[in-house]
């Protein structure tokens, strides 16, 4: 007889919910919707609790509990407490249509920081490192065989480096937007661009193929583990545990 603990009942509920969600494969049905609405309710409640305890309370409530209401007038805390408190209250104004306009300053700050993170992250995190990495693909060590190295491994290394460079450049050129406008109004790439774009598109298909295969492996493993879980619950119920 299995130990009747909270986890035991939890496992049964989890198994039921798993079957209810799997039923969507056959058709959209009542069971799937009930499971999804329970899931969204729990996920929302949990996210709210974590955001309160990990961010809002430490930033806006604890300073008042610890320093008392004098914190409100403490000049040092203007930047770390007063302004964020005011901005947060203004953002909450967005909840109602009439006061929505008051919260625009908070939204402007969020949008400004978001845009800066995009621009800064893209330039310093991807554009420059990835471009420099591509130029480093064909260093002399790679381009010329080391002493005593057999030709096959050198050739493999050289071809790989060339392929990486060609793949990067042709893929980048595939995305080129400007094109020639024909008399008929059709827009078409020039012949050279069309060839380069075709090679680039092939490399894109290869990249997507690899990632698609990886995602298939990951999700098939997750599906296998779900059935594994159902099997363990059945065994547990059968007492075989």
């Amino acid at each position, binding site marked *: 007889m299995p130990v009747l603990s909270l*986890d035991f009942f939890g496992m049964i*509920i989890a*198994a039921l*919910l*798993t079957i209810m*969600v*799997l039923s969507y*494969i056959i058709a959209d049905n009542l069971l799937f919707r*009930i*499971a999804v609405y*329970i*899931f*969204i*309710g*729990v996920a*929302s*409640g*949990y*996210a*709210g609790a974590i955001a309160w305890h990990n961010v*809002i309370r430490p930033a*806006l409530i604890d300073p008042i509990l610890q320093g008392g209401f004098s914190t409100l007038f403490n000049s040092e805390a203007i930047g770390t407490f007063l302004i*964020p408190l005011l*901005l*947060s209250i203004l*953002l*909450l104004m967005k*909840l109602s249509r009439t006061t929505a306009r008051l919260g*625009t*300053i908070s939204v402007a*700050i969020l*949008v*400004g*920081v978001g*845009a*800066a993170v*995009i*621009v*800064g*992250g*893209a330039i310093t995190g*991807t*554009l420059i490192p*990835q471009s420099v990495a591509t130029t480093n693909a064909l260093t002399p060590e790679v381009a010329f065989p080391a002493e005593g190295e057999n030709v096959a491994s050198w050739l493999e290394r050289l071809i*790989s480096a060339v*392929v990486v460079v060609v*793949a*990067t450049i*042709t*893929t*980048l050129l*595939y*995305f080129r937007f400007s094109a020639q406008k024909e008399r008929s109004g059709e827009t078409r790439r020039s012949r050279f661009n069309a060839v380069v774009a075709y090679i680039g*598109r*092939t490399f894109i298909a290869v990249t997507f*193929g*690899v990632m698609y*295969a990886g995602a298939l*492996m990951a999700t098939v493993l997750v*599906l296998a583990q779900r059935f594994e879980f159902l099997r363990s619950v059945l065994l547990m119920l059968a007492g075989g545990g």
Partner: protein
Amino acid sequence: MKLGSYLIWAAVAAVSGLFVLLGYFIPVNLIPVAFQLRLLIMQWAVLLAAVGLFVGLANIFLVHWTKVGEQSEGWPYSAILLIFFLITLMVGLVFGPDSETVRLLFNYVQLPVEATLSGILAISLALAGFRILSYRRDFISVVFVGTAFFVLIGSGPGLIPNDGPGYEFFAGLRNWIAQVAAAGGARGILIGVALGSVVTGLRVLLAIDRPYGDG
């Protein structure tokens, strides 16, 4: 478009963005005041993102509360959502998100449903792989499905067992495809995406695009 109010919001967004942006290029200790201000603005943004989450949750609550109130189509589902939302939120706020009740709710409601949805994705992807060639008959789709097939063959157990003949060749082929061809292609896509991201972000900082509205 009221010129006055739109200029204020544009200025607020540009200034706060500029401080954060320059932090990527200018070392932190060169201008301590600028660095402190940048840190402050980033903390405000982090806090506002969390408050934004609460506005979003209130948004969800209002949508479903009105549905239940008006008894419109599908209101029983909304009632279920509201019940579980309020129970989890109350318990999480009072006893904390790391309390035992919340742990049980997470482990035995949220996790199994999300994992099963991910499992359903396996069937959707397999089905998409089967149908792609009949939808899009071009060489690129053949390359896409062919690559996926060879990577799967060379990755793990499957049609060709790990200790089977030729598995080494396919494993090598898989590694080459994944670590050379795909890596090159991925780098090209990453640079392209970065180009688009920079220009999109700059349009927002220069107030050409104004997602915060015109006030």
